[in-house]
């Protein structure tokens, strides 16, 4: 049976509902927060075998879950006969694919994307119009003369230093996923909402263009910059051989950096994808002022950008009433504090990007001075090798008694047993963990990434008046994190003051109802709110209640 047309089609890349984590739980929350709307979810994945079973039960208002894959699953190696057969097929294709009457508009769009990457948004709209025609088949890209012509032009003008053979394969690797996406059947919806730029953003922009339905774009992290960081360390891009002697002499001390043209091409491609989504989106939503600045620097029009911070329910997350009060603490109605040991929590997936190693090292350092009871709360199966490394480090440091890996827990049960939450991530958008901790009056020690600083110290003068709700540390600096833990352990009043500041900060700026109201207004402005227009008040109260 055909599923009904959705009010909103959410397009995500590799996350909801197959991966748990910040963005996935945010998407789940958005869907739950708008029961009056019908959502379709389109998950752009790498290949079918890359993801397991869904980690979330889809809410009743999800009318369809669709998947598009950028690559096929790996095929078994071909035997001699099959290989010969494949060669024949390729020869046949080469003879037949070059028969089109008109040049491909997709190829023309790709050409401009690669060669005029820094052009304005109007030019990107025109590129998008070309890509939306989807008039290039995969065979034409792989075996056609015109695609090869484009490759040679890119080689001459954009990547002349790259070995041609390498460029050939990278050219394919860049464009095959893109063509697969362009060929994906459109999911009909009243509006499209991409939860990142990149491949999901491109597909959303193309569908929005084809169907003439509006597009909203929400960026938690800045996709293009995250990919650039990934590309800088990617070992599948072959760089020019090192000519330096690698010693300690003058050539080590001075620098004329060699920028790999292939990395540059990938990076410029992802920036191009971001610009395409920025050009097509009618509204762009970001979580923080920091990210807004980055989006503008990357080509997003400032007038389109709204800041809608994440939010949590304050009412449901009151501090634990059973907390005992220290002898020296007056009964002034503020959050109660427990006696030592300080209960420290790391809440999140045990994956390298969260830099749990720094957290463990910080706890080890702090344990030389104060008593701590440390818990690592979060799933460990996503990167078993990293989880093993973390456990090994704890064992080798002899801290197995003090640092426990407790696995995932429901949010409601986490924060009541914690005095401080620590986040040592290399990269974050606007972590929900911090807001959840604040809602329970728990101060936070977090690394200076994403919106963490403005969440802890305040984003504007009024926010800063509330006072700091924790400590900000440099990334990968365990001694700073340890110093913060020691200080919080020694100074119970400071801990309480910071916890209170966190609660006030959530109350003022990070309420879930405010976030949902912003998105409700956004969806309404894009024509998705048919249900609300007919029963506005009752639906609203249902959401907020």
């Amino acid at each position, binding site marked *: 049976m055909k599923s009904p047309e959705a009010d909103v089609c959410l397009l995500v890349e590799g996350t909801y509902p197959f991966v748990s984590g910040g963005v996935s739980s945010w998407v789940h929350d958005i869907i739950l927060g708008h029961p009056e709307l019908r959502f379709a979810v389109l998950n752009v994945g790498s290949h079918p075998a890359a993801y397991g079973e869904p980690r979330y039960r889809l809410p009743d208002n999800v009318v369809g879950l669709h998947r598009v894959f950028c690559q096929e699953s790996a095929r078994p190696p071909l035997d001699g006969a099959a290989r010969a057969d494949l060669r024949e097929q390729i020869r046949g294709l080469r003879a037949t694919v*070059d028969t*089109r*009457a*008109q*040049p491909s508009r997709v190829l023309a769009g790709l050409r401009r994307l690669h060669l005029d990457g820094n052009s304005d948004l109007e030019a990107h709209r025109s590129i998008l119009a070309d890509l939306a025609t989807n008039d290039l088949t995969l065979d034409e890209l792989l075996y056609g*003369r*015109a695609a*090869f*012509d484009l490759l*040679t*032009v890119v080689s*001459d*003008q954009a990547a002349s230093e790259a070995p041609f053979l390498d460029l050939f394969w990278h050219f394919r690797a860049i464009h095959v996923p893109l063509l697969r996406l362009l060929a994906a059947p459109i999911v009909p919806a009243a509006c499209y909402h991409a939860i990142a730029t990149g491949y999901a953003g491109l597909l959303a922009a193309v569908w929005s263009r084809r169907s003439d339905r509006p597009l909203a774009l929400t960026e938690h992290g800045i996709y293009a*910059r995250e990919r*650039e*960081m990934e590309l*800088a*360390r990617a070992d599948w891009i072959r*760089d020019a051989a*090192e000519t330096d002697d*690698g010693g*300690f002499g003058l050539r*080590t*001390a*001075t*620098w*004329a*950096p*060699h*920028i*790999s043209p292939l*990395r*540059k091409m990938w*990076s410029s491609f992802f920036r191009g994808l971001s610009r395409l989504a920025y050009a097509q989106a009618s509204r762009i939503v970001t979580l923080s002022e920091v990210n807004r600045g980055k989006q503008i620097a990357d080509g997003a029009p400032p007038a389109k950008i709204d800041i809608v911070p994440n939010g949590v329910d304050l009412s449901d997350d009151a501090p634990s009433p059973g907390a005992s009060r220290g002898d020296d603490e007056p009964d002034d109605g503020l959050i109660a504090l427990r006696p030592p040991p300080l209960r420290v929590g790391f809440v999140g997936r045990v994956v*390298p990007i969260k*830099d749990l*190693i720094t957290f463990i*090292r910080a706890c*080890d*350092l702090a344990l030389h001075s104060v008593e701590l009871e440390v818990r690592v709360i979060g799933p460990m199966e996503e990167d078993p*090798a*990293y989880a093993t*490394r973390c456990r*090994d*480090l704890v064992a*080798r*440091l002899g801290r197995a008694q003090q640092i426990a890996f407790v696995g995932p827990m429901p949010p409601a049960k986490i924060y009541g047993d914690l005095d401080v939450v620590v986040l040592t991530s*290399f*990269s974050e958008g606007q972590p929900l963990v911090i807001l959840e901790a604040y809602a329970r009056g728990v101060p936070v020690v977090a690394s*200076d*990434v994403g919106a963490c600083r403005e969440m802890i110290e305040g984003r504007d003068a009024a926010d800063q008046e509330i006072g700091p709700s924790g400590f900000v540390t*440099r*990334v*990968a*600096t365990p*001694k*700073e994190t340890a*110093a913060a833990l020691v200080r919080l352990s020694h100074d119970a009043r400071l801990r309480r003051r910071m916890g209170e500041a966190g609660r006030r900060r959530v109350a003022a700026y990070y309420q879930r109802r405010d976030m949902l109201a912003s998105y409700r207004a956004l969806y309404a402005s894009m024509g998705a709110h048919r249900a609300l227009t007919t029963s506005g008040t009752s639906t609203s109260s249902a959401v907020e209640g």
Partner: protein
Amino acid sequence: MSSRPGPPHAGLGTIDVAAVRPGSLTYLPWVSAALIDLTAAVLLIGHRSTPAAVTAAALHLCALVPIGLGSSLASSERLLGMAFTFAIPVLGAPLAALSVRTVGHGELVEADPTALPPAVEAPGSEELRQLGEALPTCEALLAGTSDERRAIVATLTLRGDAVSVALLRWALGAPNPELAVEAALAIEEMTASFEARMAEYRKQLAEGGAPAGTALAAAELASDAIEAGLAETALIPSLAHEARGYFSHALAEDPTRSAAIAIGRARLELAVLHPDAALAAIDEVIAVEGEGVVSTAAGSLSTEGIEMTEMEMLLALRDEAVLATHALPWESASVLASYHPAAPPPLVRRRLSAARRLSGLHTRGVTGGAGVTVGVVQVPSPSNTREVPVEKP
């Protein structure tokens, strides 16, 4: 050069890059060379004797002469022909002739034949400045573009030596948070790589039957990690202990490599501030008397068994160890606990001293723990460095 129209849909032409040689080819030198070679071959096959072989060889060399003297050939063609003829008896000359007379039709490039060649962008002032000045790594990290910065961080990661790690740790305090994150990720990547390799060695050695040299490789890996500042500070004593065990294992496995093992052991002991142990490790292999080097009386090895490069390394390490025994309070556990085993970035050191010397200014790191300690030197954080004029009397 010939050209033909390209496919109509592409609107492009294909340029045949034809390697056309001016003038026609004279066949006489090639035929002469082939005939001489053929004669030599017949002689060699018909008379299987040493004089016949010598004559055949002489004829084969004579076959080079007609080509070498061929006045109609360009020097490169002569060279090619002689190489072919010498390398491939009998067939070489015809093959060379074919190669020289071939007019290529290789499709090397495709472009619109009517279009102007793409304009080559002249280097801008920024590129020229970089080419001329070759920014110091620290400054390039702070002042370069994001692409340059990433290229530097990637190369530092690939190197993974002590200086690279020290630079990356220094970059953690950079005012640019993206640089700090990239440096942190790079250090994490190197640490993870070290730990994975070390775990693999441990597994192989624990299971037994590890390939020869595994113990030495494991010990050297641990030494490298300590030296580069990648090993977990709190675990340095236990890692050093483990490495010492692997060095002993390696020596028992192959006593002939005692010099290489002593070098590794000495590096390790110096890295963990035990120069006395480094001295002992070196002196087990060599003994120094005045200027000359003689074999140790206690061991079965002598300096004759040690290669010159190894001996130079041992003596250099010995000098370093002798200095270190006088320079560092190495007995103190607290020094070990706070030790960052990397030399200060040489350029940082050089530039700081140059700045003082040339400008009459003192550079002073602001306190607050924002700098990075390398060895006994506190390198100020880039964000927290300021210059203070010297007060003159």
